[in-house]
């Protein structure tokens, strides 16, 4: 009888052990399953492809530059270097730029002002969102109310005034100029902005966002401030 009991106890403890092990497995390794459907995967793939082609074209550009450096003589090398410096200055926003793009205009909604609403400064959050969206849709250079947006630009509220690069922007009439890579991009950006909810978002703040159709030539002024490099030091030379 005792032996029989021990056998049964053994069988049951085996079952318990199995159950504990399964529970341990389940708790320890929650399987993170891929739940994306084919379209989501395709979309991701297309995004990666875009990145890929972007990188390839960048490599191509740099290769050309290398060849230019190598092939040019000593005198010409200075010229090539100058070119590069010019390009870098352009990228950093230190030069005037002209190109195809889109103009936006933010002004108080007149009908609301007439019926007694107050003109409020443009909210920095909204402006930041707009700038981010513009960059997302291939805007390259941006100027807000005469202030060039560069890498170090801060859009923020200072003492109740919305500032760009530390300089307050107008409450009543703000022009935003955007330059894109090509006219096609400019048209796309225009369509996107037109279809987006930005006009409604600005209207909530009693402002009208006017989006002008894409233009062939828009000029953006240079950045007037100074870049401060905290970490980069000038080389003393060899």
């Amino acid at each position, binding site marked *: 009888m005792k032996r029989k009991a021990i056998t049964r*106890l053994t069988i*049951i*403890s085996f079952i318990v052990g199995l159950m504990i092990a399964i*529970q341990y497995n389940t708790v320890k390794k929650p399987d993170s399953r891929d739940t994306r459907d084919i379209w989501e995967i395709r979309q991701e793939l297309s995004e990666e492809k875009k990145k890929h082609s972007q990188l390839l074209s960048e490599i191509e550009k740099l290769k050309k530059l290398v060849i230019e450096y190598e092939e040019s003589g000593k005198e010409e090398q200075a010229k090539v270097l100058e070119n590069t410096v010019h390009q870098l200055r352009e990228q950093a926003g230190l030069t005037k730029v002209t190109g195809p793009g889109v103009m936006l205009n933010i002004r108080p909604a007149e009908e609301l002002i007439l019926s007694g609403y107050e003109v409020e400064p443009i909210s920095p959050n909204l402006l930041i969102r707009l700038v981010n969206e513009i960059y997302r849709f291939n805007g390259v250079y941006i100027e807000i109310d005469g202030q060039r947006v560069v890498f170090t630009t801060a859009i923020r509220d200072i003492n109740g005034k919305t500032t760009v690069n530390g300089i307050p922007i107008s409450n009543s009439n703000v022009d935003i100029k955007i330059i894109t890579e090509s006219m096609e991009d400019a048209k796309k950006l225009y369509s996107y902005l037109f279809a987006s909810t930005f006009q409604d978002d600005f209207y909530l703040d009693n402002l009208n966002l006017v989006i002008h159709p894409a233009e062939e030539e828009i000029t953006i002024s240079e950045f007037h401030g100074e870049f401060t490099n905290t970490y980069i030091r000038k080389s003393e030379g060899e």
Partner: protein
Amino acid sequence: MWLPFLGLLLGLALGLLTDIQIPHAYENYLSIAVLAALDTIFGGIRANLQQVYDDKVFISGFFFNIALAIGLAFLGVHLGVDLYLAAVFAFGVRLFQNIAIIRRILIQKWEDRHVKKKETTV
């Protein structure tokens, strides 16, 4: 007496090596079933030590407790009340009680043996 532990180890090894997993939704049920099973096992060991062990009670208790615990958890899910906590509480308390009784019986036995040894040497 070591056979049940061997069975437990065997079960653990088999489960870990085969890497069986259950769907996430049933995790709660399995955890409570494990608790119920542990309770039954310790109850069985206690009964065995107290010499009141009954095969039928043990086997039926094992399956009935598991079924009851899972049923309670299931009902709780559908009623929106965490009824499985009731099962966790009940089994938890009983587990501690059983283990305490087992410990006392084992200590008693060990002391008895000790006394007997002394008597024989004297």
